[in-house]
């Protein structure tokens, strides 16, 4: 119980710290918005044939940008933040106090999930206003669930990769090197990918997350959650959590 209160407070400190760093916060928010605008302007008016008539491309693009937003505020953010804090000794200092490691990581993860939700709301709102996207109110709980499961899983994956980053300077390279191949393989930037890619990417965490989100925006899809794809995302999150617990380091390499 006490640890829950502490985690809640830690999330508060993380949030404050994040928003007081305008350069970092701005970049986190502007990047996905920029992609949304570029994609929307280039392809937003195009339509593809759904089972019950033409569907605007923005419906799928929303899912693409949401994946990009969530991964940015969770995975990329955790890899760099944790590696840099390990380098500066901030993690080492906290490890010397009686606080539970779960509280410290919980603060970072909680902040990542909250930022993901905030980013998602922004992206969806802009899609509605700028590009005439449609959302279905009865599916909002499913959308919320999907974003939270994805955000948690990509936090866990970020903590795992951070465990293997040698130092803070190398962190952005590690984050990009692991996530960009996944973006392309999963059809996040270019939806038209070969079937082989789809098969492989379907077993990795990113594409199932994309598909589960896309389903929530697809007018022709059934209303319920995409349990199959969500299960794949959750499974990756679980495995990553175990790896992170096993390999996470609090002190810099000597």
């Amino acid at each position, binding site marked *: 119980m006490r640890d829950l209160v*502490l985690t809640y*407070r*830690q999330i508060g*400190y993380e949030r*404050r*710290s*994040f928003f*007081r*760093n305008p350069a970092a916060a701005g970049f986190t928010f502007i990047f996905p918005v920029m992609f949304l605008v570029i994609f929307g302007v280039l392809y937003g008016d195009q339509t593809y044939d759904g089972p019950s008539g033409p569907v605007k491309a923005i419906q799928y693009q929303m899912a693409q940008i949401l994946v990009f937003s969530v991964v940015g505020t969770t995975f990329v953010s955790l890899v760099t933040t944790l590696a840099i*804090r390990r*380098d*500066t*000794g*901030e993690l*080492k*200092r906290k*490890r*010397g*106090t*009686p*606080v*539970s490691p779960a509280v410290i990581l919980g603060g970072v993860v909680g902040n990542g999930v909250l930022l993901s939700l905030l980013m998602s709301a922004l992206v969806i709102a802009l899609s509605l206003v700028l590009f005439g996207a449609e959302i279905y109110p009865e599916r909002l709980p499913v959308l919320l669930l999907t974003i939270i499961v994805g955000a948690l899983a990509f936090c866990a994956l970020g903590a795992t990769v951070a465990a293997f980053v040698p130092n803070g300077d190398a962190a952005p390279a590690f984050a990009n090197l692991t996530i960009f191949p996944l973006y392309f393989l999963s059809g996040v930037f270019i939806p038209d990918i070969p079937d082989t890619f789809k098969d492989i990417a379907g077993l990795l965490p990113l594409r199932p997350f994309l598909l589960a989100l896309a389903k929530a925006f697809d007018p022709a899809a059934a209303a319920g959650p995409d349990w199959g794809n969500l299960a794949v995302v959750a499974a990756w999150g679980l495995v990553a959590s175990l790896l992170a617990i096993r390999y996470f380091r609090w*002190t810099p390499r*000597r």
Partner: protein
Amino acid sequence: MSPAAPVIEVRGLRKRFGGFEAVRGLDLTVERGEVLAILGPNGAGKTTTVEILEGYLERDAGEVSVLGHDPSGAPRALRRRIGIVLQEAGIDRFLTCREVLQQHANFYAAPRDPDELLELVGLTEKAGERVKRLSGGQQRRLDLALGMVGNPELIFLDEPTTGFDPQARRQAWDIVSKLAEGGTTILLTTHYLDEAQALADRVVVFSAGQVVESGTPDELANRTGLTRISFSLAGGATPPNVDGLLRDGDHFTLQTPRPTAVLHELTAWAVGAGLELGELAVARPSLEDTYLSLIDHETELAAAEAAGA
């Protein structure tokens, strides 16, 4: 644990990093309420030993007890009772001083009041300032406050004043002295002999992973038993031939175990010759003399060992 039991007890401690044995069979005892300073050159094993005591590093061999706990794996029960001021430790730079202190206070069951601590370390005016706007010295004082916020029985200070200007060093010493008066046991590593002299009840000198000397600062200072006498003579006068007298232009120095006799001889000669001994100074033996002679001796031994091997 009885109140008389030592706060820290180390027997036969060993730690190896690859091919380098940083700590080689080290013994150490720290009594309750004591301020112990560990002196030693870089690579003597100071930080390695302290990090084993703090629970950051695992030892290879030896027995270690800190407040009755084995620090291996940094048990939470131990972390509740100690405070650690690391040589280098980052802080969230976008939080304010008070926020950081409050955040760490939250981690303890009975913490000290953050505002009271800010006052103690002289940062009251900076309470609402973000950490990134503090000077290096101010950040170090915040480090000290963070080490104290859990109201620890034992506090580790790893080179707490490195890089301080003289005034900031005095302030830090005052803080540590107040802490010691309150009964906190303090384990301090330092490069500065004056710091050890000012703060420590007892000094141990590390060299090559072992304790080579131990005692109160005065005991150690007197260990060479030599008093330093220095003076200058104008006009190229030549003083009587006293054992060990070194000449550098008009300046003369010597170290002697018989300062009274030597001074008598020199002053009698000067008065007789109608000369004045300029800049005459008689300095009691310093910790520095002992320390440097110890370290030189150890370095020679190591060199001889290396040459023999």
